[in-house]
């Protein structure tokens, strides 16, 4: 009977371990899926830029990932998850400081994942915000100044606002809700993109006296590959944000995310046909992304029909927003502001509109406060940072180089031989 007790205890321990292993495995798979989103961005952006700037955009995307992960290791993680609640700013220390023994393992997050899993999953998100910026400032920004921007943006701006909500800072206390980062990741990137696009000004020849002169991307296949890869990665981005492998939650998130993405594509398809009289691949691709960004804030807490509606509206917003930014002469070669900023804001509002969360969570006031606070902070941070760099070393390549292309200018190379 004493035997039996031991056996039962042993069984329970083994069962808890098994749950731990299964949950952690999913979180690691989700990490891998989020990683590949960087390839998604790299291909999407290189597809949407001109042939003469492809090496440059690829170079940036590779560097962003390396810088992003390393700086998140050095500073970002400590800033975003200091382990202090309710603050505006707090720092948990440099590098990784895993709690010893089970405290960093099975007990770190109720048997859902380890300390290292936590870091690497979060670390994969970090670089994303800079990748979003790189698309909007493409084809005219200087390489090194841009990398400097990324270093500071991902080391400070992203983790600080990330702390406010996911690090259980003050915004979380206020009931602000953002499931997987419509605001914390996408809008943040979008605000940075907007700041950069404004300070840089449009590409030479984009807005002429004769009106808008489109500068088409050089490879639609690359762009399409990018969108499929991003959708692919989004299963990890949203599915992993459940922070466990809870079957009900994760499978629900898969469904809401996929249907929203699909609805986004349909929405963009309809509008670009009706309003712009064309079957515009670029629009439909961005519509899918819009749907994904839109559902990201509430993928775990809306009804499926709501998810579809959220995605559909996001898809509709894309062509209108792209057109709007062109009208106000803010030149964004890949449409990052429309996809990540506009749909990110929409998705965060959708939490208040459609979300089924606990009392006081995701309220109108909380959501608007979050959008405003994070928007204000991030835009200011990015704008000042870009501005500083601009006055010190300059951020825009000279006109001759822009016309020749950044590949021959910055890299003495060509993308295709």
């Amino acid at each position, binding site marked *: 009977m004493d035997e039996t007790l031991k056996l039962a205890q042993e069984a329970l321990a083994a069962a808890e371990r098994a749950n731990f292993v299964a949950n952690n495995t999913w979180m690691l798979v989700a990490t891998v899926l989020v990683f590949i989103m960087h390839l998604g961005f790299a291909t999407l952006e290189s597809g949407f830029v001109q042939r003469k700037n492809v090496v440059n955009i690829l170079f940036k995307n590779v560097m962003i990932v390396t810088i992003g992960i390393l700086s998140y290791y050095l500073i970002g993680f400590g800033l975003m998850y200091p382990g202090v609640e309710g603050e505006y700013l707090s720092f948990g220390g440099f590098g990784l400081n895993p709690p010893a023994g089970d405290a960093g393992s099975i007990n770190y997050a109720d048997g859902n994942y380890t300390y290292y899993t936590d870091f690497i999953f979060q670390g994969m998100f970090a670089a994303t915000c800079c990748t979003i910026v790189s698309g909007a400032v493409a084809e005219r920004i200087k390489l090194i100044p841009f990398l400097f921007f990324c270093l500071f943006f991902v080391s400070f701006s992203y983790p600080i606002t990330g702390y406010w909500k996911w690090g259980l800072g003050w915004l979380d206390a206020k009931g602000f809700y953002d499931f997987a980062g419509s605001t914390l990741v996408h809008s943040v990137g979008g605000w940075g993109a907007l700041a950069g696009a404004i300070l840089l000004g449009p590409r030479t020849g984009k807005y002429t006296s004769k009106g808008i002169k*489109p500068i088409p991307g050089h490879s639609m296949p690359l762009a399409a590959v990018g969108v499929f890869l991003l959708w692919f990665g989004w299963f990890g981005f949203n599915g992993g944000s459940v922070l466990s492998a809870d079957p009900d939650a994760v499978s629900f998130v898969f469904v809401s995310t996929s249907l929203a993405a699909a609805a986004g594509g349909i929405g963009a398809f309809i509008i670009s046909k009706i*309003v712009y009289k064309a079957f515009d691949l670029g629009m439909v691709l961005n519509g899918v992304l819009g749907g994904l960004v839109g559902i990201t804030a509430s993928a775990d807490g809306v009804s499926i029909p709501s998810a579809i509606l959220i995605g559909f509206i996001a898809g509709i917003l894309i062509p209108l927003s792209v057109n709007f930014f*062109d009208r106000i002469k803010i030149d964004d070669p890949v449409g990052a502001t429309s996809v990540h900023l506009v749909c990110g804001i929409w998705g965060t509002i959708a939490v208040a509109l459609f979300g089924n969360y606990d009392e006081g969570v995701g309220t109108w006031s909380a959501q608007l406060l979050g959008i405003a606070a994070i928007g204000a902070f991030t835009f200011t941070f990015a704008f000042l940072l870009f501005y500083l760099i601009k006055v010190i070393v300059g951020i825009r390549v000279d006109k001759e180089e822009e016309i020749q292309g950044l590949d021959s200018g910055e890299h003495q190379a060509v993308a295709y031989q």
Partner: protein
Amino acid sequence: MKKIEAIVRASKFEEVVEALAKDDIHFLTFYEVKGYGHQKGESRSYRGTVYDVGYIARIKLEIIVSEDFVQAAIHAIETAAKTGEKGDGLIYVSALEQTINIRTGNSGSDAINS
């Protein structure tokens, strides 16, 4: 020897080559060109903006022939390349002072009949 140059629609190119072959003109060089002419350029749509690329894509032929083939060649091209729509293109002929076949070293009309 004469040089006949012609700018034709890509969609008509094969017919032109066949027409020339019928008249025993089997040798020619061609390459892709772009052009401005009566026909306005293709209209494109990108990101909700419709625009005109300005130029149209065409194929240019270059044919080296001896005097007595010129009219036949022109006629063949003219009939085969014609659609009657704007954009059909041009044919123009100029004189050559020398023609040498690199392999045979033959010059003049022998340069191309060897």
